[in-house]
């Protein structure tokens, strides 16, 4: 019993340290003491502006987006009992990005600020329903991945088309942002837009842990132990849509976090889905915060995309998982 507790304490400490490091990372090169003093209202006015309006929203979004991606991955893998399920790979993130781009380009988000996350949520929700319908309730690996590829390709193409048709000459540059994700120059406004949706997603997925635990024994066993599978499914779709919709609306598509993090942590939590869900949320937060610090250190001022780093780490890992899955004859 002490081992998971130790793990949670370690992960929480790591997230806290990375959050602090994220606050202190930036091109301005100001000392940590001075920066933190400015954050809490003391010190130079401009530095306070930088800390409160630029670095704080960036760190908060890194934390929330990472937690959302990690948790969504763990829940999807538990529900589909498939190690390759992940919001990026099954097309949820790309569909959320399409919803967000449509909201922005049609002017919906300008007319009504919540239009942006709501449209992203609608895109994410539709794609999860579509994947579940295409891959079937058991989520056979091949059907799941193929459905995900098709949905991702379609959503990506539609996103590019919408941005190509924009009257603004700069809109086309955004394709990279929606495909690769970034937290550069986000403001508190983005936090207020996305945070309520991600909170709702956490709240919807949190009670599913017991059901996911029961599902490891199979659907019949789960049903006989009192798990309402229909309700579980509904909450899962709503929760994933809220998490990925909220995260993608402000940060674009960040891939592979939901795939890698649950795998790295699975053994440490004794393969229990109930413990894997919160552990993956913490792990995801740490991963995205670390990646966002790394993009600022590797290429300062060039807005290297978050998704570039996560894919460089995640894609080889994905290949490794495919080989492993094949060996196990799944």
């Amino acid at each position, binding site marked *: 019993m002490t081992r998971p507790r130790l793990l949670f304490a370690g992960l929480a400490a790591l997230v806290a340290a990375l959050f602090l490091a994220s606050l202190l990372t930036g091109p301005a090169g100001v000392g940590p003491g001075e920066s933190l003093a400015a954050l809490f209202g003391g010190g130079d006015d401009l*530095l306070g502006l930088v800390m409160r309006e*630029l670095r704080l929203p960036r760190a908060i979004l890194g934390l929330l987006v990472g937690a959302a991606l990690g948790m969504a991955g763990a829940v999807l893998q538990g529900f589909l009992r498939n190690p390759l399920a992940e919001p990026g790979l099954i097309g949820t993130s790309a569909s959320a990005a399409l919803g967000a781009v449509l909201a922005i380009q049609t*002017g919906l988000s300008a007319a009504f600020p919540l239009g942006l996350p709501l449209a992203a949520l609608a895109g994410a929700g539709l794609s999860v329903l579509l994947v579940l319908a295409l891959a079937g309730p058991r989520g056979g690996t091949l059907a799941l991945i193929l459905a995900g590829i098709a949905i991702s390709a379609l959503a990506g193409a539609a996103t590019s088309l919408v941005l190509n048709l924009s009257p603004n*000459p700069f809109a086309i540059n*955004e394709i990279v942002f929606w495909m690769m994700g970034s937290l550069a*120059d986000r*403001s508190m406004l983005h936090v207020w837009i996305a945070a309520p949706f991600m909170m709702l997603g956490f709240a919807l997925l949190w009670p599913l842990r017991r059901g996911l635990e029961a599902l490891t024994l199979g659907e019949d066993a789960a049903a006989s132990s009192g798990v309402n599978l229909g309700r579980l499914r509904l909450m899962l779709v709503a929760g994933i849509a809220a998490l990925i919709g909220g995260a993608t609306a402000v940060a674009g598509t960040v891939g592979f976090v939901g795939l890698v993090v649950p795998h790295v942590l699975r053994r440490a939590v004794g393969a229990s889905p109930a413990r894997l869900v919160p552990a993956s949320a913490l792990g995801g937060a740490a991963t995205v915060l670390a990646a966002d610090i790394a993009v600022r250190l590797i290429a300062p001022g060039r807005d290297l995309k978050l998704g570039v780093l996560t894919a460089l780490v995640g894609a080889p890992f994905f290949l490794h998982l495919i080989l492993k899955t094949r060996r196990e004859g799944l």
Partner: protein
Amino acid sequence: MVGRLFLAAGLLLAGLALPAAAEAPRRVLSMNLCTDQLALMLAAPGQMVSVSYLAQDPTASAMAVEAGRLPVNHGLAEEIFLAQPDLVLAGAWSTPETVRLLERLGIAVEVFPIETDIAGIRANIRRMGEVLGREPQARAMLARFDADLARLTDGQDPRPRAALYMANGYSAGRDSLAGQIVDLAGFDNVADELGLPSGGVLALESLLLSDPDLLIEGRRYDGHARAQEMLEHPALRALSRGKPAQVISDPDWICGNPHILRAVAELRDARLALRDAP
């Protein structure tokens, strides 16, 4: 096919036979926004047969009205060849394949370098006068340009600090035309202090901490783009609150020709207003 080859060969021979300065070209086609404008200012009536489509776009061209009287081209070798120009004006950024193809078809092409400073602008005006056979007009334009410039750039201290901030967080310093305009208007440029003389991305937090006296923002285009969203960032709004901010009017900033003096004059007025403010 054979006819086309003979035509090409004939044009090539004609080009070789004529000494360069013998006679002014009668059918001049320009395929670059900046050569469009310089040529429109210097050419004789009827000498230009076509300008690029960008020259008619009022968001990019300072001479959209004048260009509107001429047919446009899109820089494609086929349409240029069919217009039968005896001289094509191109910019250094024109597609090199098109320029090479036109030269192989025997059409004389003059490629003008990008102007990033006053010396470059003066050289291009002089050269445009030569290739169009309009030297006297070019000399007159240079004299007027020098006089206007001298009038705009006298008595420049103190020099306040300005920052250019455009879409995608792009800024530029003294090695760019935009940086030259800022410099001529009597401002020191934050981009030079931060090591971006020829331009690059200026992090929003570096911009905030540099605390410029004047913020010169890129213009906003219709429709939404994330590139432009950062111009609305609350932190940037907080920086420019209660301070003057200028918006770049693209047509006067893109090409190095006498129109830049309008941009210089506008910024100079902003500097004088800063000086007179308490």
